[in-house]
């Protein structure tokens, strides 16, 4: 039997395989993003880009706690002016590999999301991902935009008005009804959904001093501990909307990726798994997917995608 074909199409963009480097992991320098693609990623996402540079919070900003990671980085990034250069350089290196680039954007006003979308579009990323769901900046901005279907839709409209590039919206699991928000995003013109951002926020103390370990106090929980929640969110969204979903949340091996595909995911975001498996984890997940497909005599992802919706 021929080796199964892992390629997939996400919002009209071809991915050689469905593994996507999730936003916030390694997505700062173009050389590292290219290295991740060479290691086997099917697409790479930049760190969330804001208009102005952000230092983020003091260390510690990321910890492994036993069931996954907890982070409150504070969306540090060098700002759109620098990142446009990184995206251009990354695309040059990614093009020969056939690996697309997703630019993640973050702003604190609906208007600035539009400005950012226009600005990053100059570097021609293959997709734009709207980050309205970071759990760590609530205290700065009252409430994350992804908590509200109306605000999420407004952000999507503003971004769509400012770019011709397909747009993904990254949603939060920390809401009462993620389906309503996904529906609002798609009705507003979102081409796809990334589900989900980190869980929580959660809190970990150092019991000797009684202090939270993260400098920010609380942080988003990711990794294996949140996977069942992410799977349920992806299933609920795939049942309700027709837009493609990048399923993100605790996927660390081929089994987990298959599970996400079964509930309807078009692609799978890989973040915390890089902690457990290094950059080689993309290749391992693809090998696991291929193995599953061979055992079930599937030659393409479409043959089992969404079977369990």
């Amino acid at each position, binding site marked *: 039997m021929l080796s199964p074909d892992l390629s997939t199409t996400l919002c009209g963009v071809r991915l050689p395989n469905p593994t996507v480097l999730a936003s916030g992991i390694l997505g700062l320098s173009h050389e590292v993003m290219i290295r991740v693609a060479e290691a086997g990623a099917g697409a790479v996402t930049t760190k969330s880009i804001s208009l102005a540079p952000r230092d983020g919070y003091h260390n*510690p*900003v990321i910890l*492994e706690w036993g069931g996954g*990671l907890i982070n409150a980085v504070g969306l*540090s990034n*060098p700002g759109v002016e*620098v990142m446009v250069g990184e995206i251009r350089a990354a695309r040059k290196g990614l093009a020969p590999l056939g690996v697309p680039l997703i630019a993640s954007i973050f702003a604190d006003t609906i208007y600035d999301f539009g400005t950012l979308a226009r600005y990053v579009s100059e570097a021609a990323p293959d997709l734009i991902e709207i980050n309205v769901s970071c759990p760590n900046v609530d205290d700065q901005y009252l409430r994350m935009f992804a908590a509200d279907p109306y605000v999420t839709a407004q952000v999507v409209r503003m971004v769509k008005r400012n770019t011709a590039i397909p747009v993904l919206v990254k949603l939060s699991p920390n809401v009462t009804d993620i389906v309503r928000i996904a529906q609002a995003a798609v009705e507003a013109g979102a081409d796809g959904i990334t589900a989900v951002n980190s869980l929580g926020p959660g809190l970990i103390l150092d019991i000797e001093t009684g202090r939270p370990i993260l400098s920010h106090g609380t942080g988003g929980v990711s990794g294996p501990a949140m996977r069942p929640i992410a799977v349920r969110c992806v299933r609920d969204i795939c049942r309700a909307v027709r837009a493609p979903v990048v399923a993100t949340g605790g996927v660390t091996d081929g089994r987990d990726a298959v599970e996400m595909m079964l509930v309807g995911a078009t692609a799978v975001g890989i973040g*915390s798994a890089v*902690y457990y498996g290094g950059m080689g984890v993309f290749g391992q997940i693809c090998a696991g997917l291929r193995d599953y497909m061979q055992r079930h005599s599937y030659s393409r992802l479409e043959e089992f995608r969404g079977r369990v919706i």
Partner: protein
Amino acid sequence: MALPVMTRILEIWPESRRVRTFVFDLELPTAQPGQFVMLWLPGVDEKPMSIAWPAPLTITVKRLGPFSTALHEASRGERLGVRGPFGRGFSLREDRPALLVGGGYGVPPLYFLAARAVERAIPTIVAIGARRAGELLYLDRFRALGVEPLLATDDGSAGEKGTVLDLLHRRATLYPAPVLYACGPEPMLVALLRFGQEHGLDGQFSVERYMKCGFGICGQCALDGLLVCQDGPVLTGEQLQAARDFGRFRRNATGRKLPVR
């Protein structure tokens, strides 16, 4: 689990006007020379620190910014957190003499390496540079290992006048193809990399970059395509020759590149 292990400062030794050594109530028996720990001062910050001795954990810190200043103000018994050891350290070649070259506060981790080299009976030369005599670190410790360091100071107040590179150039012919192990300010490392190329020496260089996670996922310490926290902090001459930003740019907390001074 990779939460910080809480420990206390056992001892504080002054080394020079702005440099202190901290000994902790913690043993890291698996740590290798050149590896680092993330040292957390609760309420202040957490920074990567090279290991000067693993058991008990010992680090030597120069007062430079807010974190090191706060650490210098800490007293015996103060509680700190330690994550690690992290990164790739030096890999000692058993079959070749070792030439250890340190500058400024880059010297202490080389003491840990020198101890391992001496243990394995590897012929070891140590060359140390500093601005002035009072800033030469760890001399007595090297001597206690039976290694007499070659010294260079900018003002000639101890050892030879000039940089440690000047000192090496004057002796280049004395060395039968040693492996170069270096830790110090980046301009010194750049010059040593060139020195190694000119004399056909393999080299390993401990590189410093802004770090956040310390374990290879945040991407903050990227030096070209290398993650200094995981591929380094000790990088080979070949890796550094291919890294265009080495000696030119480092990143700040935002990830923006700034010139290396």
